[in-house]
């Protein structure tokens, strides 16, 4: 398994997972963005009345119609339709993908974009694209390891999303949730690296615990 959208998969090998660097991300953002059909498409995907494969399921939206920060990962839709592995915007997302692969849970990376606000002309000005969709579990996951100020913004978007699309299930994984997950799997070394890369000093490398020790904590 498991990258069902384009028939690809990623494994635990780091070479199979590409994490998008800042400059790459900016480049991609300037490219064409694609906004997926919304309620109908999502209903189709969730009910299985439409195959979860590579068939075109999006409408193109002019960049001018998009807000400045409403859809910051349009490059991923391009990746999915081209059949190449997704380029994750953050290493934490790649790690979650590896965990899901490990336990045989199918996932899609940012398959849907949900418009959440429109201007007077009816054009979408703000959208929300959850990081993962788990088709077998029927659950969207948004992973955030961002600063608290940005988390507030994401919380607001999530509230709007839930109001507008009450039928979908979305779970927001905060930084603390991700930390707990890493601790559970004994991935303290990874966590320390991640924190160091983010410049966020909330984790210190424990002397007695290393990634190699990988103390399994509890059965999930």
């Amino acid at each position: 398994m498991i990258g069902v959208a384009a028939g690809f998969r990623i494994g635990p090998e780091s070479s199979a997972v590409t994490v998008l660097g800042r400059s790459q991300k900016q480049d991609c953002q300037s490219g064409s963005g694609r906004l997926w059909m919304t309620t109908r498409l999502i209903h189709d995907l969730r009910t299985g009345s439409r195959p979860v494969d590579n068939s075109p399921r999006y409408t193109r939206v002019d960049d001018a119609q998009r807000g400045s920060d409403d859809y910051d990962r349009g490059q991923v839709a391009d990746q999915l339709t081209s059949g190449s592995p997704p380029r994750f915007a953050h290493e934490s997302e790649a790690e979650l993908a590896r965990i899901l692969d490990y336990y045989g849970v199918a996932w899609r990376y940012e398959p849907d974009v949900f418009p959440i606000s429109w201007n007077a002309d009816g054009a979408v000005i703000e959208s929300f694209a959850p990081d993962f969709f788990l088709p077998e579990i029927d659950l969207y996951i948004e992973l955030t390891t961002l600063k608290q100020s940005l988390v507030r913004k994401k919380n607001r978007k999530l509230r709007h999303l839930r109001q507008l699309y009450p039928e979908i299930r979305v779970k927001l994984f905060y930084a603390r949730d991700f930390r707990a997950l890493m601790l559970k799997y004994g991935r303290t070394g990874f966590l320390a690296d991640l924190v160091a890369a983010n410049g966020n000093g909330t984790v210190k490398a424990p002397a007695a615990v290393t990634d190699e020790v990988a103390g399994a904590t509890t059965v999930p």
Partner: protein
Amino acid sequence: MSLHDDVEEILLDSETVANRVAELAAQLSADYAGRDPVLVSVLKGALVFLADLMRAMDLPTSIDLMEVSSYGAATESSGQVRILKDLSKPIEGRDVIIVEDIIDTGLTLNYLLRYLWERNPASIRICCLLDKPARRLAEIPIDYTGFTIPDRFVIGYGLDYDERYRNLPYIGVLKPSVYGVAPPEG
């Protein structure tokens, strides 16, 4: 230096745990009266719970044990969950009760359920001591729950951190300083 020194707080003392385990055992004994279920546990965390639960059950039960690889310990190997120890006897036609110590993401159990259903048991029910729903990814139908607990790092009564603390008689919260993490923001 005592093991207890690393415990920030006792979440469930041994008496509370024992009482609840007895209640679960009574409920299982009533629900499975006249049947011969097999209790299947996953090593190692559920061992203590299994030992207490089965002794409190008034049923002709049998037990079997499995061991499943964990993500963190195997990220450098196959990249997929592996059955390290399989069931020792067939479960076809048997009533299976999975006895778990804790369910949080549900990913292991989700995998295990698919695996066990392929063995054609008559039924599978889940009995877990601790349910930590805050981090659930895979929705698992839990039939018997001991306690629903908050999203904290718990140890004791079989639960470990880095293979330690399993022998604590209660369920406690591990001090964050032990695993090197400062208190979470916000």
